[in-house]
C-alpha cells in the first residue's frame, strides 16, 4: 500500500518483446493491471494495424456469444456465474473457440427457423379448426335464407313466363369464402366489403376466444372467424382481393356438413402430431441452450480478454528486424519488480527462449497520476478526483478529506437520531459488502449509495457526535448529566402571572457558575424562546473558526508542495505572505473570538464589545474613546501593527516572484533557469511538449524575456487578487455550516411538532391508536426530507467547501489519471 499523501512515482518504460512471447506477456500484464500502454502508432488507421484480422475474429466471436446470450435470456434459463476468472487462452485455442461458437450459432439458427415453420403450420391448422367449428352455425343460417329465397324465386319465375331465361335458369347458389382476420381489422374490413361490393355480400363473423400465437413475433393475437356469402364470380374475385389486402387468411371450407366433420377430425389429428413435434423441438432447443448457458460466462471473459490483448498489441511497434515488438508504457517505479516477474512468466508460458527486456526511459512529459487506494479510501479519492485529478506528485487532499469531509457534513447535519439511522444504513452496507456487490449491479442510484458506503458510515458516525454536542435527538434534547440551570427559586406567583420567565445567569440559585453542562449544549435551551439567538452566535463563531483553521492548513500544504518541487522562491515569496495575510486578519479574528469567550463571564457580558464592529474599526483605524470598549490593553497598537503587516504582504505577493524570475533570466543564459521555467514545465500537461530550445541569438533571448515577465506579472496579479478577495469571501462562505445546521434543526422540530405531536396530543387511549397511524408517516417523512434531502444538501455543501475553499489554497489538479491495462477493469466495465 503506497502512501496516499502524494501520487506514486511513475516512469516511462520501454518493453522489448519477442513476437512469439508478446501475446503471453501482454496477457500476464493484463492480469497484473499495473501498466498503461502508449499508442506508438497514432496516425495509423484502425484497419491498417497489424492485428486487425485477429480483432475482427474476436468481434465475430463476441457477436455470436451475444446472440447466444439473447436466446438464453429469451428462454428464461438462468446464467450461472461461478466467479471463475479464466486466463486468456493462447492463440491456437482461439480457432477451437471459434469453431464451437460457429457450430452453436448454426444449430440455434436452424432450430429457430424450424420452430418458426412448425409454428406457422400449427397456427394455420388451429385457425382451420376454429373455422370449421364456428361456420357450422353460419351454414345453417345460410340454408334457412336459401330456403326462404327459393320459393320466392320459384313464384317469380312462374309469374314472369316471358321473363329472363337467366333468372329462371340459374339456381340461386351462394358462393362463400371462409377465413380468419385480426380482430382490430374487422370493422374496417366490413365497411370496405360493403362499399366495394355495393352491399351485395353477406358477412358473418365471430370471435375466437383464445388468443393465438404469432409465429414470427411470438405475441398473442386475437382473431375472428368470418365467412362471406356472395353470388357470382366477379364478386368472388373482388372479395378475394379485399381479403388479401387486409391480410386475412382464407381457408378452403367444404360445403357439406359431413365433409366438414371429416375435415375437422383430420385437422385434430394433425394438430396433435404437430404439437408433439413442437414440444420435441422445444426440448431440444432448451437442452442446447442449457448446455451453452453453463459455459457462456467463461466464453465471454475469454473472448473479451483475447480482444483486449490484440487491441494492446496493435499499439506496439514492430522492430526493424521484424522479430520483436517494442512497447512504451507508464508504470509505477515501486512495482517494477512485479512487472519483471510477470514478463518472465509470460515468456515461460509461450515457451520462448529469449527473455523480454524492460528499459527505463527519461522524458520531459508529465507522467500520469496514480494513487494506490483500497476499498475504503477509493471513495474519498473519487470525490477529490471529480474536481480534478491531482497533478503529478502534488499533495493529495484525499487523506485529509477522509476526516474533514464527514466532520463538516456532521456540523451541518447535527442530529444524533438521524445520524444513528444513517450510520446504521452505512454499517449494513459495509457488513453485507460481498453479497451486495454480487447482487445488484443495474440500478444507478443504488450503485451510487453503495459506492459511498464508507462515506455514509463515517458521516453518520460523526453526526452522532455533533448531535450530542448540539444536544439534538429528533429535535428533542437529552438531559444526561443534569442541567446547570434551575427554576427552584422562582416564586409560584411569578410562574402564574407571566407567560415567559427570564432566567438571569448572574443569580447563583438559577445558574451554577462553576459547573456548566459537561458535554454539549445544556438541555434547557430546548425549551428556551431565545434558543436560536443564542445558538446563532455560537454556531457562526464556530463556523468561522473551522473555516480559518481549514484554510490555514491548506496554505501550509502548499508549502509542502513548494518544498517538494524545489521552489524556494515560492516558499518565501508566496507562502509566507499568504499565511501572514490570512492569520493577521482572520487568525486575529479567531483569536479574539476565543478571548471574548474566556475573558467575559455573565456578570460583565453586557459591556463586551461586538467583535464584528471591532474588526471593521480595525480596518478603518477608528478607535473607541472609553477604556471599556477595548477587549484588552494594548489593543490599539497591536491592531495597527497587524493591519500594516497584512497590507505589506500584498506587494510581496505581487512582485517578489516575478523579480526573482527576471533576475535569473538576466544573469544566466541556460535553458533550465529560475523557478519560473521549472514550474512551467512541471505544470505543463500537454503531451509531447519539450522545454523551449536554447536561444540562438541575443535578440531571440530578449524577446522571450519580455514575454515571460509580462505574463508572469499578470499571473501573479491575478493570483494575488484572487487570494486576498478569496480570503474574505471564503471565510464568509464557511457560514453555510451555521445556516444548514439551523435549517436542519428547524425542519426536525417542525416534523415533530406537526406530525408526531398529532398522535401524542390525543387524550386517553385514543392517543395510542392515532400514534400508531401517525408514526409511519413520521418515519417516512423523516427519511425522505431529513435524511435524503437534507443529507444530500449537506453532502453537496461540504463537498463545495472542500473543492473551492480548501483546495484553492494549494491544489492545482491538472493531472491525468493513470489508467492501467487491466482485465479486472475491463470485466467491470462490461458488467
Amino acid at each position, binding site marked *: 500500500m503506497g502512501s496516499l499523501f502524494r501520487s506514486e512515482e511513475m516512469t516511462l518504460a520501454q518493453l522489448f518483446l519477442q513476437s512469439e512471447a508478446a501475446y503471453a506477456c501482454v496477457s500476464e500484464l493484463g492480469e497484473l493491471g499495473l501498466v498503461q500502454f502508449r499508442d506508438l502508432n497514432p496516425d495509423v488507421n484502425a484497419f491498417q494495424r497489424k492485428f486487425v484480422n485477429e480483432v475482427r475474429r474476436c468481434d465475430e466471436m463476441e457477436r455470436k456469444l451475444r446472440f447466444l446470450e439473447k436466446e438464453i435470456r429469451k428462454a428464461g434459463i438462468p446464467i450461472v456465474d461461478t466467479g471463475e476468472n479464466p486466463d486468456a487462452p493462447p492463440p491456437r485455442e482461439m480457432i477451437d473457440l471459434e469453431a464451437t461458437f460457429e457450430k452453436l450459432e448454426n444449430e440455434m439458427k436452424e432450430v429457430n427457423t424450424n420452430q418458426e415453420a412448425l409454428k406457422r403450420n400449427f397456427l394455420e391448422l388451429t385457425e382451420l379448426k376454429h373455422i370449421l367449428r364456428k361456420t357450422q352455425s353460419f351454414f345453417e343460417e345460410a340454408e334457412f335464407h336459401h330456403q326462404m329465397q327459393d320459393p320466392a324465386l320459384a313464384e317469380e319465375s312462374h309469374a314472369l313466363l316471358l321473363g329472363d331465361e337467366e333468372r329462371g335458369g340459374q339456381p340461386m347458389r351462394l358462393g362463400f369464402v371462409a377465413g380468419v382476420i385480426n380482430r382490430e381489422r374487422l370493422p374496417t374490413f366490413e365497411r370496405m366489403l360493403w362499399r366495394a361490393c355495393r352491399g351485395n355480400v353477406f358477412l358473418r363473423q365471430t370471435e375466437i376466444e383464445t388468443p393465438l400465437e404469432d409465429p414470427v413475433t411470438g405475441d398473442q393475437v386475437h382473431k375472428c372467424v368470418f365467412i362471406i356469402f356472395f353470388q357470382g364470380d366477379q364478386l368472388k374475385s373482388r372479395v378475394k382481393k379485399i381479403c388479401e389486402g387486409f391480410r386475412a387468411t382464407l381457408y378452403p371450407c367444404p360445403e357439406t356438413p359431413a365433409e366438414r366433420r371429416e375435415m375437422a377430425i383430420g385437422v385434430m389429428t394433425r394438430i396433435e402430431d404437430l404439437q408433439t413435434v413442437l414440444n420435441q423441438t422445444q426440448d431440444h432447443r432448451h437442452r442446447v441452450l442449457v448446455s451453452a448457458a453453463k459455459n457462456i460466462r467463461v466464453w465471454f471473459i475469454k473472448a473479451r480478454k483475447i480482444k483486449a490483448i490484440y487491441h494492446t498489441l496493435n499499439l506496439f511497434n514492430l522492430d526493424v528486424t521484424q522479430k520483436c515488438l517494442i512497447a512504451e508504457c507508464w508504470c509505477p517505479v515501486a512495482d517494477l519488480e512485479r512487472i519483471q516477474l510477470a514478463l518472465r512468466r509470460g515468456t515461460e508460458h509461450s515457451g520462448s527462449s529469449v527473455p523480454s527486456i524492460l528499459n527505463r526511459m527519461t522524458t520531459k512529459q508529465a507522467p500520469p497520476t496514480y494513487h494506490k487506494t483500497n476499498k475504503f479510501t477509493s471513495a474519498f479519492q473519487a470525490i477529490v478526483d471529480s474536481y480534478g485529478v491531482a497533478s503529478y506528485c502534488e499533495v493529495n487532499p484525499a487523506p485529509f478529506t477522509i476526516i474533514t469531509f464527514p466532520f463538516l457534513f456532521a456540523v451541518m447535519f447535527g442530529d444524533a437520531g438521524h445520524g444513528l439511522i444513517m450510520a446504521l444504513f452505512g454499517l449494513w452496507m459495509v457488513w453485507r459488502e460481498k453479497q451486495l456487490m454480487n447482487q445488484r449491479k443495474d440500478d444507478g442510484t443504488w450503485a451510487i449509495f453503495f459506492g459511498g458506503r464508507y462515506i455514509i458510515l463515517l458521516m453518520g458516525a460523526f453526526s452522532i457526535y455533533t448531535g450530542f454536542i448540539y444536544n439534538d435527538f429528533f429535535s428533542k434534547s437529552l*438531559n444526561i448529566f443534569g442541567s446547570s440551570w434551575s427554576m427552584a427559586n422562582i416564586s409560584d406567583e411569578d410562574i402564574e402571572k407571566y407567560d415567559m420567565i427570564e432566567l438571569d445567569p448572574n443569580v447563583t440559585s438559577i445558574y451554577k457558575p462553576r459547573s456548566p453542562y459537561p458535554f454539549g449544549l445544556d438541555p434547557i435551551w430546548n*425549551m428556551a424562546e431565545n434558543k436560536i439567538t443564542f445558538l446563532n452566535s455560537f454556531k457562526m463563531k464556530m463556523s468561522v473558526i473551522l473555516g480559518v483553521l481549514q484554510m490555514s492548513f491548506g496554505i501550509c500544504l502548499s508549502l509542502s508542495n513548494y518544498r517538494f518541487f524545489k521552489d524556494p522562491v515560492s516558499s518565501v515569496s508566496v507562502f509566507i505572505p499568504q499565511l501572514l495575510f490570512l492569520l493577521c486578519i482572520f487568525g486575529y479574528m479567531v483569536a479574539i473570538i476565543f478571548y471574548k469567550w474566556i475573558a467575559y463571564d455573565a456578570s460583565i457580558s453586557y459591556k463586551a464589545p461586538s467583535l464584528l464592529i471591532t474588526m471593521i474599526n480595525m480596518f478603518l483605524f477608528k478607535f473607541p474613546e472609553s477604556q471599556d470598549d477595548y477587549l484588552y490593553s494594548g489593543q490599539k497598537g497591536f491592531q495597527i501593527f497587524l493591519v500594516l503587516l497584512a497590507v505589506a504582504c500584498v506587494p510581496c505577493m505581487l512582485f517578489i516572484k516575478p523579480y526573482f524570475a527576471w533576475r535569473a533570466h538576466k544573469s544566466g543564459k541556460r535553458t533550465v533557469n529560475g523557478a519560473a521555467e521549472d514550474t512551467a514545465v512541471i505544470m505543463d500537461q500537454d503531451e509531447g511538449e519539450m522545454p523551449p530550445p536554447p536561444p540562438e541569438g541575443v535578440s531571440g533571448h530578449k524577446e522571450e524575456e519580455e514575454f515571460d515577465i509580462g505574463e508572469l506579472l499578470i499571473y501573479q496579479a491575478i493570483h494575488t487578487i484572487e487570494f486576498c478577495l478569496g480570503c474574505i469571501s471564503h471565510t464568509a462562505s464557511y457560514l453555510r455550516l451555521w445556516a444548514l445546521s439551523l435549517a436542519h434543526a428547524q425542519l426536525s422540530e417542525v416534523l415533530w411538532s406537526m406530525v408526531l405531536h398529532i398522535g401524542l*396530543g390525543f*387524550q386517553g387511549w385514543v*392517543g*395510542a391508536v392515532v*400514534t400508531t397511524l401517525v*408514526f409511519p408517516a413520521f*418515519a417516512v417523512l423523516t427519511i425522505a426530507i431529513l435524511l435524503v434531502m437534507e443529507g444530500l444538501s449537506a453532502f453537496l455543501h461540504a463537498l463545495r467547501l472542500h473543492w473551492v475553499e480548501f483546495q484553492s489554497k494549494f491544489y492545482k489538479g491538472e493531472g491525468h489519471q493513470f489508467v492501467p491495462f487491466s482485465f479486472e477493469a475491463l470485466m467491470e466495465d462490461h458488467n
Partner: protein
Amino acid sequence: MFVICGPKLSICGFIISIWGIIMMGLLGVFFLIKSPLLLEDIPATKADFEERAKVDAIFQQSAYNCWVVAGVYVFVGLFSYFQMRMNSRQQYVVT
C-alpha cells in the same frame, strides 16, 4: 401460509417496526420520568396545569400510550418478518 405483502413492503414494514419499537419504548420511559422537555407534547390544557397530580396522571397516560404503540409494532414487526421469510422462500422455489 401465503404472501400478502410484496418483498419491498415487508422489508419497509420490518424496518419501521423496529424503529417504532425502540423509539416508542424510549419515549414511554421519558414520559414516565416526566421529562420537562416533553411538556409541550402532552394533551393537557392550561386548566390542567393547576394541579400537579393531574399533570402527573396525564404523563403516565401518555407513557402507557407509547408502550401500547410499541406493543402494536411488535406484532407488525413479527408479521413483516414472517412475510419477508415467505417472500424469500417463494423466490428460492421459483428459480
